[in-house]
């Protein structure tokens, strides 16, 4: 192994979107940063912010928290790619070694009507919460549950449900979709519960309520570009979208039948 102490410094030119508030006009500002290939992208932005504070300028606002790819806070579009160039990697886990020294990197917020910019690179993703509120749960009061082993679940289904449940709600799917559609996010939750026995009693009600809420939030429609899947840091598959489409039609027929 090559020991890389102090090696790997790299100069980066950043173009960062600065916008003071929702609806205010925004523009790119250019900064130069001395980074290191072992830094994460967000650590590079930390360095930038230190630099800005030192120079008496307001630091760049960006969302982040866990910095290990699970909370879904971080949300940057890097050179037109939500979460940047590395597949299945959130921007907090993206490291500068993915870039060339001297690179020019353009950083934008997620862009979608349903995700208005709050400030700089921070957007408002509360539309996702509203979609979940419409039905992304099993209605069971605390204490009313039967013994856990009373509900066996086929392992294949449990695994598929887990694959869908791995969504971190980051919004990269919307950001990457040419139509700013939220189908991947919504379908991930619908799929999780469609695949599990616990989800059956509310199966029809859930998909209808969640899709209708999604439609009301101003997201675009899905025209099957599959960009969402490619951008998703958790590898959520577009087969979930197909499943949700089916479920939605099925729910309509069933409700009609009742």
């Amino acid at each position: 192994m090559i020991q890389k102490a102090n090696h790997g410094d790299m100069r980066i030119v950043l173009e960062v979107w600065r916008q003071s508030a929702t609806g205010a006009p925004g523009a790119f500002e250019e900064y130069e940063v001395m980074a290191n290939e072992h830094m994460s992208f967000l650590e590079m932005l930390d360095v930038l912010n230190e630099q800005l504070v030192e120079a008496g300028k307001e630091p760049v606002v960006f969302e982040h928290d866990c910095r290990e790819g699970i909370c879904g806070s971080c949300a940057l579009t890097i050179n037109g790619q939500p979460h940047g160039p590395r597949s299945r990697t959130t921007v907090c886990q993206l490291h500068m070694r993915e870039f060339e020294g001297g690179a020019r990197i353009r950083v934008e917020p997620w862009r979608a009507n349903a995700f208005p910019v709050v400030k700089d690179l921070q957007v408002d993703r509360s539309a996702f919460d509203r979609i979940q509120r419409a039905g992304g749960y099993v209605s069971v009061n605390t204490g009313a549950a039967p013994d856990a082993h009373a509900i066996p679940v086929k392992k294949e289904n449990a695994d598929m449900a887990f694959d869908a449940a791995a969504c971190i709600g980051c919004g990269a799917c919307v950001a990457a979709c040419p139509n700013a559609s939220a189908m991947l996010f919504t379908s991930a939750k619908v799929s999780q519960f469609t695949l599990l026995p616990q989800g059956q009693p509310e199966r029809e009600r859930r998909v209808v309520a969640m899709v209708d809420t999604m439609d009301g939030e101003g997201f675009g429609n899905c025209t099957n570009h599959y960009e969402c899947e490619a951008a998703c840091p958790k590898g959520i598959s577009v087969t979930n979208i197909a499943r949700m489409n089916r479920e939605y039609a099925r729910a309509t027929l069933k409700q009609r039948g009742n």
Partner: protein
Amino acid sequence: MDERWSRHKFDLKLVNPANRRKFDVIVVGTGLAGGAAAATLAEMGYNVKAFCIHDSPRRAHSIAAQGGINAAKNYKGDGDSVHRLFYDTVKGGDYRSRESNVHRLAEVSVDIIDQCVAQGVPFAREYGGLLDNRSFGGAQVARTFYARGQTGQQLLLGAYGAMNRMIQAGKIEMYTKREMVDLVQVDGVARGIITRNLTTGEYERHAAHTVLLCTGGYGNVFFLSTNAKNSNVTAAWRAHKRGAFFANPCYTQIHPTCIPRSGDYQSKLTLMSESLRNDGRVWVPAQKGDQRPPSDIPEGERDYYLERKYPSFGNLVPRDVASRNAKTVCDEGLGVGPTGEAVYLDFGDAIRRDGKKAIEARYGNLFEMYERITGDNPYEVPMRIYPAVHYTMGGLWVDYNLESTIPGLFVLGEANFSDHGANRLGASALMQGLADGYFVIPATIASHLAGRSLQAVTTEHEAFAEAEASARAHADKLMSINGSRSVDAFHRELGNIVWNDCGMERNADGLRSGMDRIRTLRDEFWQDVKVLGDPATVNQDLEKAGRVADFFEFAEAMFNDALVRDESCGGHFRAEHQTEEGEAKRDDEHFAHVTAWEHTEAGKLPVEHREPLAFEEVKLTTRSYK
């Protein structure tokens, strides 16, 4: 002991279902503890107002927990029981926790699993369709339920769903991007909070009949930890300053297998699952200053120090022992990597023995994560690991009802001190957070709501005006300093002091001098910190500055506690108190108690209170892993 919780529940007053809607409950923090509490209380009929600093409750730090959650289900039939889980937890806590609390925790652990499964949490399953369990953190039985490496995420999403259902039903009003900046008391009872809206900068007043603090742990006092960047002690500390006692602040847990720092810019540390130690062998070069790449160091010139010192447990010694030993070898100058603060965790033998395929099946995702962060391929090059701060056992003092010393203020989850004593066992924090939220508080809250006569209070009350003014003044002061150093620069320096003098190993001299240095640095902070921008919009530096200001005060309390606790126990290792083998040496005669600190005034040392710990069920022994 077995019946204490049922008896207590029976003895507790009840709030009639029709009356519950007359009570407003504030829940601050919507991680596992707060989310579970908010949902359950709303289901019962209380009016809940819930607050979090994130843009969605789904992002609370609980989301990051990887390993799993314990429960005494005995689904594996390997002899587990409520009593055994209780016993293991008390012992694991190095006999510094309350027996009755821990017993209750073990009892309700089984209900948690039932609840979560009913919610659709996708726990790992076997081909028969039933739940799988694994043994975790050296436990002798397989009682850990898990959802791949994302157990915390799945549990939190379950609680988030339960909350969402109640938000939709109009029973929870959810306030995101709100930071609690002060607690409001009326007639000595907690009756509300002041929040700062992190988007608009506005200060808001919220009144209720009771306040639940579920705001997580204080690990970020170290600056570098495995905690999320926004984790803070602010809500708990400000409640402390309003009169809630703080218990055992010196108890912190250091996790042995984290990815080491790569440079000064490092912003946080990433945990690698403990399970790696099942197959990885820990070693350092036997010779100081050996700069050869690991593959060039022959077997005979490596020191597998855990296997050497602990022949029977080897690489699987408990967290604190593994951590301390890594520090010892690095302090001796044997550490590896660019910073010299790392040891090797080598899978070479395991790969040769079981094949790359088998290792990939077991740890593939962890290896991938490691590669992503470090750029090294652990199939070919040994991993480099180093301990990092991971969990804080101390917290606001609470009684059996989870009520703090301020009537009407309840504290749940990692924010309280209650169940883990001086050391927490793996997979038991998730269990505690959910136990507190789903099962304990819904019963015990009645002691306050039905037990006390509570006058109607509105936000017009002068106590709200006073608290709001004081919170504003605090922030205004930070904005007005306009010094020369950034908030992060101060935080980093504070973290360094805390890590060096109150980290894995502490001693009286270090603690005393550390405390002095903290005071000096704190004074500098208040004169020289630079917070730019507008306080009336999103201002992340102002948020950080407020939190770091509290960490400064907290750090001093922590050092003080560590100094006063003149023994070693669990994660608190005082160098002066060790056995000949270098193990923690407890002093049960003088220190079998909880230390609860009462705030006096800024700059003065707090007043010590002691809650003696009585052990009826568990026999005190000394741990040995030789």
